[in-house]
């Protein structure tokens, strides 16, 4: 780790100075494989602030977001009908990130102005795009809040759970936990540099989450060649079902 810091320091110093403050960042890994025994993964996001001249006055803050591939979704609400709890109302969401984590040097409300949040869509609430119309519910906001609550409980949405450590207003590091139930795709990691609630600089990089070879193959086959996949499932069932009993018959005789 120490060597990493030195490298970054050198990098920051050696590069020709341009604007006042710029962010440079790296990831501990830029690909994650969803293997058979995948239980989740920690990604270390680190970087530094490159600047010419002295450090400007005032507090410097860093926000890191990691966003999984967006999906369209329907949120259902249950109500009691004839004594049974069933889905009765629904609200569509045009796009909601399948995973969303926000880490920051201080609580978002203290360091991010509402205008900057709207511009860059940093807080979880703004990362979700609600359907513009078509809903017949009176309280669509409750549905979006439920989406956030459910995904927070599943570890898929994280806000304020991990902190960004900032050293000497120059070097920062944070750790984002990808849980076991993430979907595959390109995960965008965004790093924001803030002064007085405004974004000074932004850096974006990607983490590729891919199913491992066998899982990838099975998934692709299931969606691209469903008939072939069905036959494969039947073949597996027949081989194991018939084969196992044949083995046991042999063992007995």
């Amino acid at each position, binding site marked *: 780790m120490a060597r990493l810091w030195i490298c970054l320091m050198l990098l920051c110093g050696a590069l020709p100075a341009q604007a006042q403050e710029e962010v440079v960042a790296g990831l501990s890994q830029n690909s994650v494989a969803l293997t058979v025994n995948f239980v989740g993964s920690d990604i270390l996001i680190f970087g530094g602030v490159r600047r010419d001249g002295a450090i400007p006055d005032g507090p410097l803050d860093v926000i890191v977001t990691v966003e999984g591939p967006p*999906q369209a979704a329907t949120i259902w609400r*249950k109500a009691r009908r004839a004594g049974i709890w069933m889905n009765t109302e629904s609200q569509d969401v045009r796009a909601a990130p399948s995973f969303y984590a926000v880490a920051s040097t201080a609580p978002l409300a203290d360091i991010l102005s509402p205008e900057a949040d709207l511009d860059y869509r940093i807080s979880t609430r703004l990362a979700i795009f609600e359907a513009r119309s078509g809903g017949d519910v009176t309280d669509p906001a409750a549905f979006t809040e439920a989406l956030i609550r459910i995904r927070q409980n599943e570890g898929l949405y994280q806000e304020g759970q991990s902190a960004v450590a900032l050293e000497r207003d120059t070097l920062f590091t944070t750790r984002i936990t990808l849980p076991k*139930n993430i979907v595959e795709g390109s995960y965008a990691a965004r790093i924001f540099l803030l002064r007085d609630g405004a974004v000074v600089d932004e850096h974006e990089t990607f983490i590729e989450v891919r199913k491992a070879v066998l899982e990838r193959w099975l998934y692709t086959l299931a969606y691209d060649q469903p008939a072939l*996949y069905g036959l494969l499932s*039947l073949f597996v*069932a027949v081989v194991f079902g018939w084969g196992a009993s044949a083995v*046991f018959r042999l063992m007995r005789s």
Partner: protein
Amino acid sequence: MQIYLPIAETSVNAFTLLGVGGGVGVLSGMFGVGGGFLITPLLFFIGVPPPVAVATGVNQVVASSISGVLAHLKRKTVDLPMGWVLLAGGLIGSIIGIWFFNLMSRLGQIDLIVQLSYVIFLGIIGAMMFNESLRAMLRTRSGTAPRRKRHTHLWVHNLPWKMKFRASGLYISVVPPLLVGVGVGILAAIMGVGGGFILVPAMIYLLGMPTKVVIGTSLFQVTFVAAFTTMMHAITNQTVDVMLAVFLIIGGVIGAQIGTRLGLKLGAEQLRILLALLVLAVCGKIAFDLLWPPAELYSISVAEGA
């Protein structure tokens, strides 16, 4: 050890899966039941999405019945013409069931439909088994053998399109077996079960088939209907998880071998009452979940293939 399921897109504990497959396998070996009606609800309880549980459950049925049907075919204890008629009905039923399943998925009600069907059917089977085994225990105590009329003609047998079923010694209309097949096919598609628990009593009491061909013929129908339903779910929903199926099947075949031996030693007839209680307990748990106010009123369904 956690394993990642590529279709369900989540990780579950491999030993839990082997345990579910193995436990149900032991029961099916002991009591000669398919066990699909226990596997699917147990998968709900460990967090597998109901559509994946149903489609994978029906794939598992193929594995648990294939060696049985081969053995019965070899012993010639399958009434093939009857099997084909039941199968034709089963395929029609499966298509109807899949259509209904997909319609309900779109309307966001499939979880409810699956759970309701389980409450109804597990309730009926559990109560019937409990009643049956209680009477069997009383009979063995009083020492009188059960008596059953060998052959009864019901009005349903006199419908048109009569056909000769030589192995069963029947000359009856094809309408009742066709309808029985349709009903079982619908259950297979919606509940992810083989449907033997409905098919066997229907063949004995409704069609009046002799017991020596009932098991083989029902396995013949169940295997092919389950295979067809697996294909339908794989093609229309992409919900068959082959990784999940492998663990259930491995647990199941080993469990069934243990169960068969245990059944011989322990006197399965006396234990049947425990199976009835287990079925009623699973039924009660699902009913409770439907009736008790849920902790989370909201649920998310993601548009697939996005």
